């Protein structure tokens, strides 16, 4: 171990860069020939089976601790890969696999060494880098000809946002995944049973939030006689963030997004200054105010004292030691399944709270596309990944796969295609069906809500009457944990989204500008470090002003101008 690390780090990354540079770097002239070859614009069969067996080498994220696959199955041989081979005659091979923690560096190395697999799933920054390096196939024709009508429908219903994120100089260089809007709305999850026990209401204002958190910390809500409970969970060390930002605009677990927005602060987002000019939210006075509020909560011990140092923030939630956290709707898929398995009475409910000074909930919103399927330039069959995505979506609609035999993450090149209102729509549909005002058959035509039919079928297995009460004791998760995970997320996590009037705040831009490629990392580091220090009381609140000055001087001002220019175009 030690020696390999030494070797790698003494000469830093240059090692890998060169080794492969010797083998890589193809001449670029060939690509033009390929483009003319695909000028055919006839629509093709999105599900057509290949006559000859095809092979595709992909880079894939595999969680080594995932034990969902039945014995005998592997990430290369499971229900998904077998179905792909049978339906499309495509054999999937792995160019590399990596765990979630190592995937980014693996991709980074693949880019740097110009040694890409035939296809893989990347994020926005990587996509940009690969396009700039001229490593990707132009997928414009592939998308036109092969994308299934349902997927096209979902991509095109994002008001052009999904397509814009993959279009460079008029060409499409990736197939954008589309995630539900709900993934970007961070709501309050709270132990309702603790509130009830202490005779409290869900906190509506920051003041009430402080009182509830204090009661959670001081009044022994878990009743074990030891003062060992956490008021508000905070971000974990490593990948934890206090707030989502314009580049990672969704699914921030255990951050303080809702608290920031209660102060009217949107750090990490590019906001309109009122005159149509962009301004970076982290540098505004509202953010200073919010940081000062959080600093106060932390100093009083109401936020997890181990925030930012704790390795896994979900642990105290699962163990019944935390009373409150902020995260999107899907927490059934997050810590709550294990929390309820541990304590069937842990009644986690969700609210669109706390409210700001105008009594409104104003969350920031996300860009629909954060995951992209890219294809290596010069790959002979650039349409194969598209057909695999078509196939996934079709089979999800038809309910072919059994998630208990390996979750959908095992589907090669999987990205999510969800209509933007999937959660809200499903939530309402389930309520209608439970109330008896509509039946399952009424929803048979909504094919792009791919899991709706199974959702409607399963709900009565796990949800008991009364149907207008969503407390944990009205659910029977033991009947089907898989179905409960989804239904509890959609109903309990979806209710605040459906029932609350929200003024959503957009970032003016969700992509990097050229200068950010070299300067953003250091600005972001400065920001993360400074804000954490302010909240945790290591640096005085006044250092915020110094941060704003430094930020502007070290490239922030130039970047702001660049963002303004990008918005003009």
């Amino acid at each position, binding site marked *: 171990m030690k020696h390999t690390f030494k070797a790698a780090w003494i000469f830093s*990354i*240059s090692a890998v860069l060169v080794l492969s540079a010797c083998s890589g*770097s193809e001449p670029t002239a060939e690509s033009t020939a390929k483009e003319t070859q695909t000028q055919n614009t006839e629509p093709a069969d999105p599900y057509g089976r290949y006559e000859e067996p095809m092979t595709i080498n992909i880079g894939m994220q595999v969680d080594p601790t995932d034990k969902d696959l039945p014995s005998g199955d592997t990430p290369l041989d499971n229900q998904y890969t077998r179905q792909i081979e049978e339906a499309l005659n495509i054999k999937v091979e792995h160019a590399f696999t990596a765990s979630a923690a190592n995937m980014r560096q693996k991709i*980074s190395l693949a880019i740097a060494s110009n040694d890409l697999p035939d296809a893989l799933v990347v994020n926005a920054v990587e996509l940009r880098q690969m396009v700039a390096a001229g*490593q990707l196939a132009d997928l414009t024709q592939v998308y036109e000809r092969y994308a299934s009508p349902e997927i096209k429908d979902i991509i095109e219903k994002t008001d052009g946002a999904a397509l814009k994120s993959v279009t460079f100089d008029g060409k499409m260089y990736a197939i954008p995944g589309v995630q539900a809007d709900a993934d970007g709305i961070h709501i309050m999850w709270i132990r309702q049973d603790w509130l009830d026990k202490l005779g409290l209401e869900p906190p509506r204002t920051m003041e009430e939030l402080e009182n509830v958190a204090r009661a959670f910390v001081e009044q022994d809500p878990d009743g074990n006689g030891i003062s060992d409970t956490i008021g508000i969970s905070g971000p974990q060390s490593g990948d934890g963030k206090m707030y989502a930002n314009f580049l990672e605009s969704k699914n921030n677990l255990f951050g303080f997004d809702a608290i920031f927005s209660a102060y009217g602060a949107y750090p990490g987002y590019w906001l309109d200054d009122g005159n149509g000019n962009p301004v970076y939210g982290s540098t505004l006075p509202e953010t200073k105010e919010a940081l000062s509020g959080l600093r106060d909560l932390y100093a009083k011990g109401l936020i997890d*004292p181990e925030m*930012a140092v704790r390795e896994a923030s979900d642990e105290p939630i699962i163990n019944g030691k935390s009373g409150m956290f902020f995260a999107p709707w899907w927490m059934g898929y997050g810590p709550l399944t294990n929390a309820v398995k541990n304590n069937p009475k842990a009644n986690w409910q969700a609210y669109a709270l706390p409210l700001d000074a105008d009594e409104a909930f104003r969350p920031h919103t996300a860009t629909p596309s954060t995951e992209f399927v890219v294809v290596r330039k010069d790959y002979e069959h650039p349409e194969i990944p598209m057909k695999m995505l078509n196939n996934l979506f079709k089979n999800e609609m038809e309910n072919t796969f059994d998630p208990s035999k390996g979750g959908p993450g095992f589907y090669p090149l999987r990205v999510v295609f969800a209509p933007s209102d999937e959660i809200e729509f499903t939530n309402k549909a389930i309520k209608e069906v439970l109330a008896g005002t509509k039946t399952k058959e009424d929803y048979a035509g909504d094919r792009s809500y791919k899991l709706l039919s199974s959702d409607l079928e399963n709900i009565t297995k796990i949800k008991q009457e009364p149907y207008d009460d969503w407390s944990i004791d009205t659910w029977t998760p033991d009947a089907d944990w898989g179905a409960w995970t989804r239904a509890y997320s959609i109903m309990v996590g979806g209710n605040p989204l459906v029932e609350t009037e929200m003024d959503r705040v957009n970032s003016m831009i969700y992509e990097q500008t050229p200068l950010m490629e070299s300067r953003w990392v250091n600005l972001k580091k400065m920001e993360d470090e400074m804000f954490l220090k302010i909240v945790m009381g290591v640096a005085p609140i006044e250092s915020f002003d110094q941060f704003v000055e430094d930020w502007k001087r070290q490239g922030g001002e130039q970047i702001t101008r660049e963002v303004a220019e990008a918005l003009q175009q």
Partner: protein
Amino acid sequence: MRIKGFDKHYYLMLLPGYLWLIVFSIVPMFGIVIAFQYFNPGKGVFHSDWAGLEHFRYMFVLKDTRQVFFNTLLIAVLKIIAHLIIPLIFALMLNELRQIVLKRWIQTIVYLPHFLSWVILGGIMLDLFSYNGPVNQLGALLGFSPTLFFAKAELFPWLVVGSDVWKEFGFNTIIYLAALTGINPALYEASGMDGASRWRSLWHITLPGIRTTAVLLTVLSLGNVLNAGFDQIFNLYNPLVYSTGDIIDTWVYRTGLLNLQYELATAVGVLKSLIGFILISISYYLAYRLINYRIF
């Protein structure tokens, strides 16, 4: 020497080491050119445009870089000193122990942490020093209020050095013990005859006897002076302690591998190698001048 072809075996045994060195150390040196380019992976090292010294200029503008170099030097120097002194003292103490069985036990136990990786030890350390961890519970008994040790920038370098010494001192102790057994027992007998106390023979026989080993270990570790321990720090640090805990290697990792700034990361790596080279040259020269010792 005795048989003509005998040397061949030695060279054969050297071969894997040389292969390793060539593949991982010599060939990659060529990658240094990336630091002087606008590196475009699609075009590769041979066709990317030249940037001159721009990345180096930017590197010196960044406050981070200076901080990171300083942190690296501080942590590494503290580690080198601690790794020299503590195992030496421990080995001398063990050497005075007459109970062979007890000696073996102690030797083995202190040696054990050496075999654990920092991924595991990092988790253990974080738990030990966590808010409700044993250290804080002990402190509570003594009347201290709980502290989040790994969130305190001023403590971080000491925790890093301390835990590294705890992990590795058993290993270094064994090297010193081996050197101690190499001292001719007749010398001790003679000094005993002459009426020397144990302190005297320690000073005049033991210490001179292992001087070469001590110097050798130090000189060799000076080559690592800019490697403050990536795997250890990577598993222990968080943004709160970047100001004192972020070292060159973790910074290069984040910049180059996570944020795709290959050129800047390489530039910092090159500067690191350059400084490392100068330091090794100095230490080699010093070892030669001070005790007339040559490695090569």
